[in-house]
């Protein structure tokens, strides 16, 4: 699910990587410690940071935004869990292997008919084999191996949890990256890098694997607070990002069954 707050988190991460290109264990681009935050700095803490010769970068959305109108409403896969179970087919046998984690289901498609068993808490590989065999005609299980008689086609799949998302709106919104620096030199060192990097950046991913577009639209400095050792520089970014909803679902186990129903209709 993507929204305004996800954009702030993503910008936070980008800013951190730009001002600490070699990680926070190495010096920043300005040679002084830089704190990156979402929201607004607390005055007393900002005062202390500036007093210590360090800088603060705050990230906040402006009040300027607009929706972008038309977009396609369709579900897209956001993430798919990695199966930990296996169901290996050899001739007319299925061997259940791997490790049992939930939620997962094992599907056997026998003679083009699907049979699925969803693992439950306490299941072992052998109980999964037993329970699946109980669903399949002419099948028996011994240990983790299921043997099926009268088989002319046999295949298996592991059904796992997945998350899908749909874009339901798209916003153009302006964000501030405000550099609070104790000197003009530090401000310039940070601002130069941020402007260049964000100007170079076309798009960036959000937490749900959707993509936000990026443009640098303003870069201002102000010295009005220099008597308080505060040298500010404000980059304004225009970010176009999707508003998405997500849904927990499962992977499809047997497409063939569905396609038969589409062709012939349910019996």
């Amino acid at each position: 699910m993507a929204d305004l707050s996800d954009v702030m988190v993503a910008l936070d991460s980008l800013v951190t990587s730009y001002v600490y290109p070699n990680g926070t264990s190495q010096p920043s681009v300005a040679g002084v410690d830089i704190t990156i935050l979402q929201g607004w700095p607390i005055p007393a803490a900002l005062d202390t940071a500036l007093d210590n010769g360090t800088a603060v970068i705050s990230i906040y959305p402006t009040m300027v935004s607009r929706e972008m109108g038309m977009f396609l409403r369709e579900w897209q896969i956001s993430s798919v869990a990695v199966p930990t179970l296996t169901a290996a087919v050899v001739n007319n046998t299925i061997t259940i292997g791997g490790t049992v984690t939930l939620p997962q289901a094992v599907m056997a498609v026998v003679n083009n008919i699907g049979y699925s068993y969803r693992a439950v808490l306490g299941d072992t590989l052998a109980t999964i084999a037993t329970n699946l065999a109980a669903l399949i005609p002419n099948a028996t299980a011994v240990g983790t191996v299921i043997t099926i008689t009268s088989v002319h086609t046999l295949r298996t799949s592991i059904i796992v949890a997945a998350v899908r998302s749909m874009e339901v709106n798209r916003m153009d919104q302006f964000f501030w990256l405000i550099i609070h620096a104790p000197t003009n030199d530090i401000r310039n060192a940070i601002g130069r890098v941020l402007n260049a990097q964000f100007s170079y950046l076309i798009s960036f991913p959000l937490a749900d694997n959707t993509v936000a577009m990026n443009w640098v639209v303003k870069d201002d400095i102000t010295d009005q607070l220099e008597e308080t050792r505060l040298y500010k520089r404000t980059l304004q970014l225009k970010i176009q990002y999707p508003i998405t909803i997500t849904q927990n679902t499962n992977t499809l186990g047997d497409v063939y069954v569905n396609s038969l129903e589409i062709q012939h209709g349910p019996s």
Partner: protein
Amino acid sequence: MDGIKIQEKVYKGYAIAARKIGLIYSQYRSATAIQPIVVGNRISTTFYASFNVSWDYMKSSKYGNAVFQCVADGRVLQVGDYLVGQGKTSFIIGMENLLPILSVECNAIATIQRPTQLTTKGSVGYVGYVAGNSTTLPTNSTVIMQDVPISILENGRGMANPNKLPMDSEWGRWLVLMPYLGSVQIKVADVIKIGTDLYTVDSNELTDFGWRIRAKRVTV
């Protein structure tokens, strides 16, 4: 006779007068700004004092006034001492040579917090005054004064509530007086908490009288 001896005589005279016309208070002296009114800080339970706004006792106090002259034995009194009793709490703000002892009458008990934030290098996530609730301290805030009796009185017109709800009222301005306890420095933007009400410090003046603070009450 020198100034010291005269002062001694004046305070002795105050002590005699307090015995005649005063009431009994408990006297507290705290070295810290954390809970000054506790038994461990009590140095007398039989301290006589009388408060007035004029020496002829012909004037009453009025709205907006917290400062009273105090008739009491100045030889055992210090600026910053609290006198508690008779349903009220006062603290001593002035004991200038040969001049009347001045006190402030309290009408609230406050805890003062200093909101702060992580300033470590790299990302520190979201930052703001994350207020907590009645039992937990705001995130990353520190208590600099706790359960301190203060005077807080209305002080001029406030400002519009930025939340702009239909039933919003303005954020009033308040004048806060409190003693200078434990060398604690109050800063602009510190938060004064009285019960569940929050006030933020707009200006902080420290004089021999203690703290005079202008604050605004912030509400939703």
